[in-house]
Each structure stands twice: as C-alpha cells, then as structure tokens.
C-alpha cells in the first residue's frame, strides 16, 4: 500500500503497533490503555459520597455587602469570592451588565469588558493621588528585557509582528486617563471663571 492510497482503501481494522518497541522508548507507554480504566471515564459518575462534602446544601456565607450575580442564578450562591468589590463608574457599568443581561447576551460580556477598561483608567487616575502611583515601567516587567535576552529571544519569531501592538494596549488607558484628566481640569477651570 502506498501513502496516496491509504484513505481510499479500507486498510486494516487497527493500526499495527509494536508494543515492545514503544515500551522501550516511552516510559509508561500503554499504562492507561483501557479507556474504561481512565480517571475521567465515564464523564459523569453519580457519587456524592466521595467528594468529602458533609452537607446537602452548603451553609450560606454571610453577604456583608450586596453581591452582584448573574440573572441566570436563581439565588446568590452559598459561597462566593470577596475580592475587589464593585466601586465607581466601572462598578456602575458592571452592575448594569449583571442586572440587565443574561450570560447569553453579547451585551453582558461587552459591558463587562468596558467595565474593565473603565476600571483601569479609574485606578490609574486614583493611583496618581496615592502614595504609590502606578509605574508602567516596573509594573509591565519590561526591566526583565535585558536580563532575559529580549532581542535574541524574539529573533525570527512569527509573533513579533503583532507584539508591536502590545504597547498600544498598555498605553491606551494612560492616554485615556490623561485625556479624561485634562477634560475634567478644563471643565473645572471654565466653571470657576463663570
């Protein structure tokens, strides 16, 4: 049989395998040969007793401040994360995404992405008034370029052509923040002059 004939004729039922040669070359070859003896087979195994849970429904974590949730949930889940609560304009955008649109709607996700960009701008502006303003040099980690052979590592790589966009993604919120700041200052000055 030539290569060009393979799909056009039936061929053997199973591809012949030299088990001994493979076992010699590959540590553990065939250790999980039986599909029915693999840890995730079958996909669903009904056995609530094995998980370690000693509750039917977990006790509810106290909701110390209002917690946003997907409208596809019938209720707040018993346990939830408490990192970075909603705040500011980004919080309003995210709250709208959760309250108004299900996960099936593109608007839900695009609003959340918009909230992320607003959050970055808000946070940059806020950091300028803090004792530790954002520092794009240290926070982007670019100081590693010299130590990590930045130029040699990229030589001949196909992804270099779109890496030029990375600085735009990084600088975008800064440009927006400066623009928003300048606009706000101008508006305040105009109001003061009236």
């Amino acid at each position: 049989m030539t290569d060009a004939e393979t799909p056009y004729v039936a061929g053997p039922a199973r591809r012949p395998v030299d088990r001994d040669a493979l076992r010699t070359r590959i540590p553990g070859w065939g250790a999980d040969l039986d599909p029915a003896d693999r840890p995730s087979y079958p996909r669903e195994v009904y056995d609530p007793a094995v998980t370690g849970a000693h509750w039917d429904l977990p006790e509810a974590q106290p909701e110390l401040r209002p917690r946003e949730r997907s409208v596809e949930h019938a209720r707040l889940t018993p346990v939830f994360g408490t990192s970075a609560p909603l705040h500011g304009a980004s919080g309003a955008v995210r709250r709208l995404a959760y309250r108004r649109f299900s996960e099936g709607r593109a608007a839900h996700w695009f609003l959340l992405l918009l909230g992320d960009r607003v959050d970055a701008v808000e946070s940059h502006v806020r950091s300028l008034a803090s004792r530790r303003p954002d520092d794009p040099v240290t926070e982007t980690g670019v100081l590693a370029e010299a130590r990590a052979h930045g130029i040699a590592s990229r030589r001949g790589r196909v992804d270099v052509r779109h890496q030029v966009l990375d600085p735009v993604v990084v600088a975008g919120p800064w440009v927006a923040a400066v623009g928003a700041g300048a606009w706000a200052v101008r508006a305040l000055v105009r109001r003061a002059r009236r």
Partner: protein
Amino acid sequence: MRAMTYRGPYKVRVDEKPEPVIEHPNDAVVRVTRAAICGSDLHLYHGMMPDTRVGHTFGHEFVGVVEEVGPSVRNLSVGDRVMVPFNIYCGSCFFCARGLYSNCHNVNPNATAVGGIYGYSHTTGGYDGGQAQYVRVPFADVGPSVVPDWLHPEDALLCTDALATGYFGAQLAEIAEGDVVVVLGAGPVGLFAARSAWLMGASRVIVVDHLDYRLAKAREFAFAETLNFTEVDDVVLHLKKATDWLGADRVIDAVGAEADGNLLQHVTGAKLKLQAGSPVALNWAIDAVRKGGTVSVMGAYGPLFTSVKFGDAVNKGLTLRMNQAPVKRQWPRLLEHVRAGYLTPRDIVTHRVPLEDVAEGYHIFSAKLDGCIKPVIVVDED
C-alpha cells in the same frame, strides 16, 4: 501580606493587602509556599477575560501549609502541607455529585457557565488567588489534599492544574491503541498532554508550535515528533501528508485564546477583544483531524463568540470534547504515574522567581523570553 495584584492590561505589581480570613465555616486559610503562573493567567494579564478587576490577585496553581481552618473543617488540620486544585467546588451540587467538579453551581454567583477558579477574575467567582503569601481556600474538606511525603513540592504544584489538565485533555481525546495524536501547542499543558497520550496507547505523537525552544522540549520531554508551523505553507495540508492523507485520529488544542498563525484572527481576538480569543488552533484541529475523529479542547477561551469553522466539524462527523479539568478526579492515577516515573512534572519548570519580582515573571512568560516554559513563584519556605 504581600500579594500580586492586577493593575490593568499587561501591568501587575506586588501590594500590601489584608490577610484573608475565614468567611465560611468550611474555609481554610493557606500560607502559600509556591505558586505558578499558568498560560491561562496570561489571558487575564492581557485583559481578555471579562470582569478582571484592578486589585485582584491571580494564581490558581499553588501549594502551601494550612494556617487556619473554619469550624466545620474535618479533613485538614493546621500545619498540613496541602496541594489545592484550581477548581473551587462544593462537592454536593447537581454537577459535583456527578463528578463534574469544574462545573460546580454553588461557588460562582457571577456566571452559571463556569465554576469557581482561584484568582481568575470575577467571571469565575471573584476569589483572590494564590500568588500571595496567604489565600482563602473555600470548601477545605472537598478540594485540597495533603501532599504525600514522597512528592516533591513542585511536582505537587504542577498537579494542581497543568499536569492534571494535560492528562485530562489526553483522556478527552478518546485515544485508542495505535492512534496518531496531534497536539497543538508546546506549552506546559501541551507537553503534558503529549506525554500522557503515550500512556493511553498512541503510536505517534506530533506536537505543533512556532517556538523552536518549546519544540525541542517536546522532542526531549514528550518523545514527540514536532512541526514548526512557520516552516510550512499550510499546516493542515502538511499534517494530512504526514498522516497518510487521512488526518490525525485525535487532535488536542492546547493553545486557546491567544493562538498565533493567523494575523487577522490574533489581532481581532487577542488584541482588540472583538471575539473570545483567536480560534486558529481550534480551526486547525478541526481541519487536521480525520473524519470521525476527536478534537479535545484544553485551550482556554473567553465567554464570547469566536469564528470557529463549525461546518467542517459537522461535515466530518467529529466529536468535540472539552471542559475545565476536574482536577481531583485525576490525582490518584496521576500520583501513581509520577511515583512510577512515567510522568515527571517539574522537568518543565524553567524559571523560579521571588514573589517581589512577579511583574518580571509575567513579562518573561508573556513575551516568551529566555526559553520560558513554566515560571514558578517562590513565595515562602516549605
């Protein structure tokens, strides 16, 4: 405590944050000793995952020591060295009861389409992650396990996601003895999937990437044939020719949302966020697998739509299988394989950085500098 915090796309730093507290009776607080940066953390870092908030701490691969336990915790004690699966799950909901631990319904109020994950945006529940000195671990009786004495801490660390996910991906591919398996992506998950494919009886394993240093690792670590897709005009055609014009029996997508190989897809997906990632690898998988074959998707994608060539998948009669790995289901067998030397997880670790240098660690990993395959953050002594 000191913790990595997100400051916006491509920007992270180490901040002083309050130590986590017991918020639920079955919580534990774990002092982190080692954490890892996962390829999927880069999707957060690049601003691709919706509802990634400034101030959030990433990190879903970590090991550490139990510092405090809630009043209902029975299975862990203060001082236990633990490995914590990246999944946060209750163990008792409709889905957990069926073994779908990564699809738990009781831990993520922000979305029903995904379960809970440490340090992976509010889209997966808003839990701070383990790239910090301390982390809150919900459902301490369900998720974490005590690290066996014989297991190296970095092997334990890699069992919390990358190894378990790669091994799970090979299982989803439904590999039968003699199958030709193509793995797209030679990152940590791709390397582990390729190595696992042999355990399930593959006769050939071909790994595809564009980074020569990672392909060299695939040859040495995963005993695979390799293909640098930038060296051929048409990767699908090349794979067809390399598989007797049939296509591979099974293809594993271990790339996900930031795939290179098509500038338009990459820019619209990974840079402009107009789709939930760049489906280049997924489309190559669909086109390079043989008719009636299986595509296993381990690459992470966002919750929005992507321009996937679904018609080809239908017409070829493919089986598409995918999920976040239910990590703890894999552990008993994985530990057997690690102990037997069939899997050698920490061989892929290339960089170890202190927590204070986390921004540089992210940059090196993201820009693929210095031969980086897997960076580990050394947080504290074991």
